[in-house]
């Protein structure tokens, strides 16, 4: 059980403190934490579980905000981390972004949320839809409304019925004039490609994201044409397990609004949509670099937002790189980004140039890894296809929308 939660800004300032148990955790722990973070640098900042002289600290870092959970007792670490992640997600969901000034603007809401999410160190509810029922998120419509009506409370008058219902994720029975359900397949491709072009590992982690606005208590079923390609799946609590087990059908009563219905993994994919061929030759104190990028197996849709990023090896003192398409930028810490955008039909983009190696070294011994980013709209590269979406329990008509997107996750080419 957590004893205290702190939110720290980018500058190490305590933005918010929420004591959860009778043991008051002194704020000085944040000062300790921040000193460590500064003196130890990135590797410390990334470490999720830290031991301070007095407490165990879990940290989750999101968009410049550090979420710290402190405890002195044994607890499942994943529970703490998972909870802090949920806090971050809920805040992000409420305020549209996680930013220091937005959080400071809304710190009362943050307190209210934390109050409902955790009591006495034990998480209660983190379902965004239920929280929304209890505490209204700040938005312009509400604000305008409150100016007109003169009431400006952001606390709903009634308690959500879900706290008493047996479907904890669905709050009340909303009413919509237009009923619609949108289903998105969002996939991320992780791949490692060897220096000789061989595909060492290629897999996809995908999510079925649903945005539902349906009146009443609908019962949905979603089925795929080829569920057998899925290696492993995980579900939102609303999904019934038996229909999936017997027929690979997703049967569920959806929460209202946006949620992740299912996550899945597809392993051992045989090809990638694009190729990136780096070539490095070094001799006599300089190194020639050329990188070619092109479409490999045309997915049928345009590939855009293509970027190639790599870290210049240490011992490189200068780099002169040009490309025939897109822009090349060298950022601080010797990171080089080549933004290609959309791959043109008529030519293969290439980047080339020379790197100057520190004097005294003839050849390069450390070769960079190239991280590739891309996005393909309209295609789920795993090949997963939605068969149909049906709605039971309701009489009205509703609109269904499907969409797919694949982007690069950890897509890495070694040289």
């Amino acid at each position, binding site marked *: 059980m957590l004893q205290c939660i702190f939110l720290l800004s980018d500058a190490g300032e305590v933005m918010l403190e929420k004591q959860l148990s009778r043991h008051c955790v002194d704020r000085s722990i944040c000062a300790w934490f921040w000193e460590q973070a500064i003196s130890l640098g990135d590797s410390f900042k990334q470490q999720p579980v830290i031991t301070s002289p007095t407490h165990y600290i879990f940290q989750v*870092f999101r968009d410049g905000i550090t979420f710290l959970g402190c405890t002195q007792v044994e607890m499942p670490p*994943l529970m703490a981390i998972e909870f802090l992640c949920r806090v971050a997600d809920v805040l992000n969901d409420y305020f549209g972004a996680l930013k220091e000034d937005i959080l400071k603007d809304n710190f009362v809401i943050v307190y209210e949320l934390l109050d409902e999410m955790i009591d006495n160190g034990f998480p209660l509810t983190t379902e965004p839809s239920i929280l929304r029922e209890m505490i209204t998120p700040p938005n312009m419509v509400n604000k305008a409304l409150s100016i007109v009506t003169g009431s400006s409370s952001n606390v709903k008058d009634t308690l959500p019925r879900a706290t008493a219902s047996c479907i904890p994720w669905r709050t009340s029975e909303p009413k919509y004039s237009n009923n619609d359900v949108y289903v998105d397949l969002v996939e991320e491709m992780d791949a490692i490609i060897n220096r000789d072009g061989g595909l060492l590992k290629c897999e996809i982690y995908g999510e079925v994201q649903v945005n539902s606005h349906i009146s009443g208590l609908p019962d949905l079923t979603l089925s795929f044409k080829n569920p057998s390609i899925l290696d492993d799946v*995980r579900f939102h609590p609303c999904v019934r397990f038996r229909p999936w087990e017997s027929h690979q059908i997703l049967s569920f009563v959806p929460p209202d609004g946006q949620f992740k219905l299912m996550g899945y993994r597809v392993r051992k994919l045989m090809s990638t949509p694009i190729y990136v061929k780096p070539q490095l030759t070094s001799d006599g104190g300089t190194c020639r670099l050329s990188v070619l990028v092109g479409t490999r197996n045309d997915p049928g849709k345009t590939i855009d937002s293509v970027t190639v990023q790599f870290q210049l090896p240490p011992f490189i003192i200068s780099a002169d790189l040009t490309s025939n398409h897109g822009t090349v930028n060298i950022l601080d810490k010797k990171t080089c980004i080549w933004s290609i955008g959309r791959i043109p039909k008529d030519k293969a983009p290439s980047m080339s140039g020379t790197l100057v190696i520190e004097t005294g070294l003839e050849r390069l*011994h450390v070769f960079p890894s190239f991280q590739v980013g891309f996005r393909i709209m309209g295609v789920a590269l795993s090949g997963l296809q939605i068969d149909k979406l049906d709605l039971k329990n309701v009489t009205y008509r509703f609109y269904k929308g499907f969409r797919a997107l694949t982007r690069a996750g950890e897509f890495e080419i070694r040289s």
Partner: protein
Amino acid sequence: MREREDQSNQISPLQLLIRRKCIYLTFSEETKGRSNRVRGHSTQLSVAMAPPPPQSHRSPSPSQPSGKSEVSDLKSQLRQLAGSRAPGADDSKRDLFKKVISNMTIGIDVSSLFGEMVMCSATSDIVLKKMCYLYVGNYAKVNPDLALLTINFLQRDCKDEDPMIRGLALRSLCSLRVANLVEYLVGPLGSGLKDNNSYVRMVAVIGVLKLYHISASTCIDADFPATLKHLMLNDPDTQVVANCLSALQEIWTSESSTSEEAAREREMLLSKPIVYHLLNRIKEFSEWAQCLVLELVSNYIPSDNSEIFDIMNLLEDRLQHANGAVVLATVKLFLQLTLSMADVHQQVYERIKAPLLTQVSSGSPEQSYAVLSHLHLLVMRAPYIFSSDYKHFYCQYNEPSYVKKLKLEMLTAVANESNTYEIVTELCEYAANVDIPIARESIRAVGKIALQQYDVNAIVDRLLQFLEMEKDYVTSEALVLVKDLLRKYPQWSQDCIAVVGNISSKNVQEPKAKAALIWMLGEYSQDMHDAPYVLESLVENWDEEHSSEVRLHLLTAVMKCFFKRPPETKKALGAALAAGLADFHQDVHDRALFYYRLLQYNVSVAESVVNPPKQAVSVFADTQSSEIKDRIFDEFNSLSVVYQKPSYMFTDKEHRGTFEFADELGNLSITAESADSVVPAQQVEANDKDLLLSTSEKDEGREPGSNGSAYNAPSYNGSSATSQPLADLAFPSTGISGQAPASNLAIDDLLGLDFSVGTATTPSPPPLNLNPKAVLDPGTFQQKWHQLPISLSEEYSLSPQGIASLTTPHALLRHMQSHSIQCIASGGQSPNFKFFFFAQKAEAASMYLVECIINTSSAKSQIKVKADDQSSSPAFSTLFQSALSKFGLP
């Protein structure tokens, strides 16, 4: 299909524009200090801009109060509004409250406003109430008297018609945590537990727990635990049930130390009806409450296997849950349930593999790490199950290095015949990694795989390639590995030496690597034609070598080289010994002196000491004992796994103490080892020339010890076993002169060991050769003693000098030890002494066990010999007798 706008959680440009405008608006109003009304409505924005002027935002020390004036300003404003019932009053109040709370959040002490805040909180506005609760909760503890003020309005709110307000008020009331106010808690809590709204009941249950922590007796007296138990079994709302469970667990656990009934109740929580009651409803519980129930069930002991299968069937779908905490709790439960069923346990591993791997790839970096730590534990326990999934443990460039480190260890563990090639290829990629610590780790991983595999052909080639990579750290790590590899697979020496020979020692800087290189130069000097010259140049640079470890190795290597190629190494050896003798480091100095004396005495003896034939190491010691690994496994899904230590090692001080003690022992034995090579010059001479003198010296040195009872008591010593490794450099029996008894004895006393080397007179070469380093533990001795028949039983006479010297048993022990006869137990007092000795035939396993009773008044000794090899026992008896007869002779 319909293409839609990218609907991520971005704010639309329009919203942004409006928002910015608002900020601008409020800001300008704020600065001009105009109308209250507008400010009231755009509160969320104004707060950020308003409270403590600019420096508060990026202030380097946010805890610095920004001045008293602002607080007193707020105070007067609050006072004005306190009684106001004007239409806009609530909005202005809210504005002020926000300022107060934001000051509080920043760390400014606003407790002086307590009275005013409480006065203003008589309102129907729920946001105002919430802020006030927050404020009161924060300061009530320091202001118990003032807290009494709030009780009144909180109690009133507990009866509000809005359940939300009832709940909030109750929560705040319990969060005051002021001991002298507990009497006011019982009533509201009692009615809260009976409230018809589940939200209020849920809050009340946790309230009971809070009350318990403030005043346990009040809580028990009000009979709340029984009410909670009733609620747990009957409440329709699962969150209430879960809160009851968590509260009861805590209350009964802490009560059980004093009350038997509470202990019984705690056991009851684990009873079949309750566990089943909870399990049957598990899908209705929130994900966090599910974790709680799963944790509880993992302590439940099912009555039979079918029950286990029922539970697992019921919970199988929890493995597919989106919440990683639920998945991990389920995994723990499954593993615990099946511990006694080996085959099912294995199936559980197969079953949980995929969900865990999905968790790793889907979550945030923090979540992946926590899951990965657990996966690491499982992989280490059952690597073969994961051996086909090795690609999941490939490192990605962007991953933080602690994740990479875990992955490297897993890659090492899962390597088997079928995937070694791929894994080693992958690891070699990392050796060229930009991240140097990871590059090092991956080279070490290759080495570990090499040491755990049978077929190492390909790996050795890779390792040797590392040596040619011309990167300092790669070379260093590879050298250390090649050394270990040669210790295990001496047959590879030809290939390795050819490559190692090409490495210039100048390019190797790291002590460990340098020591490894020097070790190889010494060990294989006959195969490396320039070894003596490389060593010679290293010796020339003696003064520039800062690491004592390297200098020690250099000494030994030069010695070894000298034995193999004397003419070429003579010069280097002379220089090394001279430099060593002049070295300021005690160990180096002592080792040099020791070698010097040894060489002076007899070169061939020196060789058998410094460079005896070695056995290949079959298994290198593991760093973590399997017991510790089991402990960590038992604590699955806890911090122990992340720290890779069982919890007692980082939580319980008492236990930590014993470990420190163990460390101390380790250090002691190290000092003992180095002290072994201490041979103070004058002592050696004394021993050589005047044995009587030395004996008396020894007696002096021993005196403090012999007064101690422990020393006199018949000691079954396991010392021969433990002391043997310490005595690595000790003398063989063939009659080299003494040890440093004084220093040795001091250590012996400390360790309670009974190890010492006596001096020898001119021994006639015995027909039977004994192993000078025979080792036998007391248990085995006893066993053998019972098993073997007596092969000889004799009686000898002892010389008068011998009797004179036998004042304590220890004098004889030392004497016999110098004849390669070890004592395992001794005892008795003048005139009767009893000894148990043992000895081992050189280059053979056969042991001789002796019981020897000496009566000093009759100057007789009776011995009984038992032997593995009966035929040679007469020869041994002769030897024993000749050794005994020399006791006490000059």
